[in-house]
């Protein structure tokens, strides 16, 4: 683990409890994690273990119950507007077209709108949505909506990307393409990424480190360094080291006992 000193994101002693109708739900317990600038960290874990919650805490959109989160030099006690966030649900505004939804980011941040529009169109093209710029969300397929929300998060060249299963609704091929595109954008812009996924191979392919979480209350079970060269190429997935990482992570998961017997 990195020391807090050189880290961009530092999460120390963080826990989160929800007061639901069913009483308290301990979503996260004693989370400690430091992420270096420019690092790509994926979070893997069974459904409901607290991945989304962790991202919401780092974004400052939800307050921690205990502990402390720093991003850059900033103590996160309010929404961190620097980050680009891809939420698990696509959260498109139904009254705006695809392009307008992406442009919202620029309108709020009040940059150069013309330049932003150019980039928005370029991003929409990158995710193969050319021709659908002026479609309303209800005219788009699930995967298309998700891609619009990715473009929105990327629009303002954020130094930090928080992505909650951004490729979850995409087919293997589109997903491969976007993984490649994302990595390119990362290295071009020196982005730090906290990436939530449920795909082991996606985590390995993209990340410098993979954090595995255990279920309720969510804790960090293991952190695996992925020692594969960059730039990553799709062919690396046939690499023996890649397969070894896959096996290792699968093993850890099995150890979590998420699994019941087969029939």
């Amino acid at each position, binding site marked *: 683990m990195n020391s807090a000193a050189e880290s961009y994101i530092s999460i120390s002693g963080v826990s989160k409890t929800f007061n639901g109708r069913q009483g308290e739900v301990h979503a996260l317990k004693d989370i400690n994690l430091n992420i270096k600038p420019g690092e790509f960290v994926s979070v893997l874990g069974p459904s409901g273990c607290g991945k989304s919650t962790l991202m*919401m805490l780092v*974004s400052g*959109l939800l307050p921690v119950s205990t502990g402390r989160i720093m991003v850059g030099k900033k103590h996160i006690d309010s*929404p*961190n*507007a620097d*980050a680009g*966030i891809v*939420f698990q*649900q696509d*959260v498109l*505004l*139904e*009254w705006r077209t695809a392009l307008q939804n992406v442009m*919202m*980011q620029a*309108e*709020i*941040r009040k940059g150069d709108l013309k330049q932003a529009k150019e980039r928005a169109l370029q991003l929409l093209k990158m995710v193969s949505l050319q021709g659908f710029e002026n479609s*309303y969300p*209800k005219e788009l397929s699930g995967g298309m909506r998700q891609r619009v929300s990715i473009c929105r998060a990327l629009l303002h060249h954020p130094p930090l990307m928080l992505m909650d299963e951004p490729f979850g609704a995409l087919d293997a091929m589109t997903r491969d393409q976007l993984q490649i595109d994302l990595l390119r954008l990362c290295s071009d812009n020196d982005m730090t990424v906290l990436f939530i996924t449920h795909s082991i191979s996606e985590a390995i392919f993209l990340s410098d480190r993979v954090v595995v979480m255990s279920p309720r209350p969510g804790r960090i079970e293991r952190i695996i360094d992925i020692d594969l060269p960059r730039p990553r190429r799709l062919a690396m997935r046939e690499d023996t080291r890649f397969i070894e990482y896959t096996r290792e992570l699968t093993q850890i998961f099995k150890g979590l006992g998420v699994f019941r017997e087969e029939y």
Partner: protein
Amino acid sequence: MSIAAETPVVPKVNLLNRLLAMVPPALWSVIVLVVVWELAVKVAEIPNYVLPAPSAILVEFGAYWHRLLPNAMVTAGEVVFGFLCAVLIGVPLSVFITYSRFMERSIYPLIVASQTVPKVAIAPLLLTWFGYGLAPKIVIVVLLSFFPIVINSVMGLKSASREMIYLARSMGASGWQQFWKFRLPQALPSMFAGFKLATVLSVIGAIVAEFIGADKGLGYLILVAGSSFNITRQFAAIILITIIGIVFFMVIERLERVVIPWRHRGPSETDA
């Protein structure tokens, strides 16, 4: 049951709808009303001075349009101007209420009180404060019509989803931007329902105001006609009031379609 077109409606009423759709429905109902009314007056021998027949009202309208029309313009002016003031007051008020729980709790009793006070009872106060001209009329129109705007705007502004607010905050949207770019568009359907209610209440407000004190307008005309027991003329004025109400209502409805093009209306368009 069949899914015939791109836009299957709820099946049972489908056929009936299509049959009836050949005549503009708004006209239909008006025609039916007028015919039933005329017949009822004739058959039940309702005295002319209790309920004049539509035909009699039409004759009166023809004979008196030169006075009816200018008075209708006066009332329409009060209605529209008062309505606009109600919007300008009601919408910002609803924003305060949405953003401050304290405002909500503390101001509602006052607002409700402003509604239940019989306007006739506070007429002397209004006259004291606003004089005898246009101002007290507008005040009464606003008093009557701002309430649905506030209630419905608050409801709409509060209906923003958690996720949407997270999105707004993640972009660093200011309170103003959150309101303007996220909550407001989301709230528009409820707000327009409030506006539609307000149109009708504006019309009532203008008439009430003219009852309280005016020397022109359709409310004034009703009073004057009443003082010489000209019931037919009263009804001619009432018909004009109603037309003002319906037209204003329909204008707002048309405006709604322009302002909220993304909103589909009715179950019939669930897959359009």
